[in-house]
């Protein structure tokens, strides 16, 4: 019994860490798809770009980890505004197929570009000393890096929730999600709101890419390889909500880890079975509006 409880704690812990990373990367996608109705499959590109910016700053220029992480957030957010104005904005009114084609094309270009600049191998991650090693607590060891991941992401989630639920900006965003023409009619500049929100979503993806670089390796095919996971989080969580993807990411992280720990012969199959079951039950996702 003792050992069962302690493995339960381990599974919950590792699942939480993995789920948090998935959430931070995917939440932006939920916002773009829900808020702007834009099918941005290239979302993973921003996560990868964040990873590359952070690791290049750390490995080449010796920038400390927290600063490099902030740099990844800011630079990717700014770059995404340029992309949004230049490319995305043109297709806001276009159909899903055009948007999918554009963003898939963007992935191909990003993959080729990353390969050209950084080569095919993954980028080495050298974490600062204070994030290495383990904490011992209640007879279990907890890796410092994953503790940090959970703590940092929790703060981020709280800040996001506060921003959307309790600030004027959040009220505007929610208004625009619910009814864009009406929001515009009462004087909300939805175009500026969209750019800002898009930048925030991309910046968060970059943050997730940088934070998770130790677990999800930064290499050129990143946006393709993990696209399915990002889409699962958004689909299961429901479009346009913040809470939905959060619950979905934790559910996926914890159940995936639990299945690997107790039933490894089923491997990564469980996550897909769970997704199918959940979507059959609630086609619009856990917190989506049908």
């Amino acid at each position, binding site marked *: 019994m003792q*050992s069962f409880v302690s*493995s339960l704690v*381990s*599974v919950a812990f*590792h*699942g939480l*860490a*993995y789920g948090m990373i998935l959430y931070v990367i995917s939440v932006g996608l939920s916002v773009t798809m829900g808020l702007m109705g834009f099918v941005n499959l290239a979302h993973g590109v921003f996560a990868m770009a964040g990873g590359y910016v952070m690791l290049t700053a750390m490995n080449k220029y010796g920038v400390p980890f927290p600063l490099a992480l902030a740099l990844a957030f800011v630079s990717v957010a700014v770059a995404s505004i340029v992309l949004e104005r230049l490319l995305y904005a043109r297709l806001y009114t276009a159909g899903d197929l055009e948007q999918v084609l554009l963003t898939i094309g963007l992935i191909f270009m990003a993959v080729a570009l990353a*390969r050209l600049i950084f*080569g*095919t*191998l*993954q*980028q*080495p*991650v*050298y974490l600062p000393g204070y994030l290495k*090693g*383990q904490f011992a607590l209640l007879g279990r*060891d907890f*890796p410092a*890096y*994953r503790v940090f991941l959970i703590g940092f992401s929790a703060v981020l989630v709280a800040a996001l929730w506060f921003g959307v639920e309790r600030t004027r900006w959040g009220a505007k965003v929610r208004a625009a999600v619910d009814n864009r023409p009406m929001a515009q009619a009462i004087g909300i500049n939805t175009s500026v709101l969209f750019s800002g929100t898009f930048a925030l979503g991309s910046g968060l993806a970059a943050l997730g890419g940088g934070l998770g670089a*130790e*677990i*999800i*390796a930064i*290499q*050129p*095919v990143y946006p*393709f*390889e*993990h696209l399915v996971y990002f889409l699962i989080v958004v689909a299961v969580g429901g479009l346009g909500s913040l809470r939905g993807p959060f619950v979905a990411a934790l559910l996926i992280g914890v159940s*995936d*880890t*639990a299945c*690997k*720990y107790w039933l*490894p*012969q089923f*491997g*990564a*199959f469980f996550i897909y079975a769970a997704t199918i079951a959940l979507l059959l039950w609630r086609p619009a996702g856990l917190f989506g509006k049908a």
Partner: protein
Amino acid sequence: MRMKLTASIAGFALAAISGLAAAQTVKIGVLSTYSGPTTAQGDQLDKGVKLFMKLNGTKLPPGVKVELVVRDDGGANPDNAKRIAQELIVRDKVQFLTGVVWTPNAAAIAPLAAQAKVPFISMNAAGVAIPYSSPYFARVSFTLWQSCYPLGQWAAKKFKRAYIVVSDFVPGHEAEEAFTKGFKEGGGQIIGAVRVPLANTDFAAYMQRVKDAKPDVLFAFNPAGKQATAQMKAYADLGLDKAGIKYIGPGDLTTDEELQSMGDAAVGVMTVHHYSAAGDRPANKSFVAAYKKEFGQNLNPGFMVVGAYDGMQLIFDAINSLKGKMDADNTMAFIKSYKNPNSPRGPIAIDPDTRDIVQNEYLREVRKVGGQLANVELDTIGKMLKDPWKQFNPKK
């Protein structure tokens, strides 16, 4: 009419000349992976071929030229590989097929090469049974039995209880079987085994499972690359090293090209393999120096680079021996008696009975040498070792 006649005579003449020229050009079809999620491996193979061509591309009999026909197989995809090989054989009329990172692809091509009587040299694909499916197949890379079976025997002398974590595809299964046989024969006990899907990213759950089972040693296999790195990081992250669980496996775990990105987590990991960039042989030192000069001082050649390089060497030696007059059966006869005492990995040969590689297997440990991680060779635990699997399972 007259015009037509002249034209057709000229045409015949041209055809005759080009026919002559074709006899002097040996075409080599190279299949590698340049697109898709596994380009890192294809890139290694490509660099080996390029380095060989740069250093030795003109060492041919007078009047003989070599033409490489390079094709992208897009990753492990047997149907696609088969189609490309067919094109290379039928349309490009290649006299050699080579390259091939992935076992499923090589297994699909080998019967085709047998039908068309085209010598097929695997530079990497290591599936242990492939040579049985074609008499025109030979391999210069390795088999997992070659490294994992002696590793199991060695480990049984040091450890009692082993846990096995391998990737869930054919090479992973072969590694598991080979290690299990060697370890059990030596009196060791396997207390658990897990197969990890290839699409896995987070290894924490698996490593936690291993940690809670408290083995003396963890035997692992992942395909060379980011998965091996992710698993090793999870191993260190969860403190399995501090819990006294030794990490061992074939050299795929600590490939030279990836080693630096694994960080200190890799220090102390013990592997058995046929090639290390840190190998202390003159042929290897000049090879590594040439590689760094060509592709960058921070890069180290991995075993796939050496596989590709040695594969090209074998093909060039065959062409030189036959003076450019290529004939499949003569080529295979040459290959069966092939020996190269000076490969960067040490002496190699082709086993005449199985056409598989014969080479030394080294026991290595990851150590820091001059601030860089290196696979330091400690001992040669298999001297000119043939593939053990084929000795247990001779072709009927």
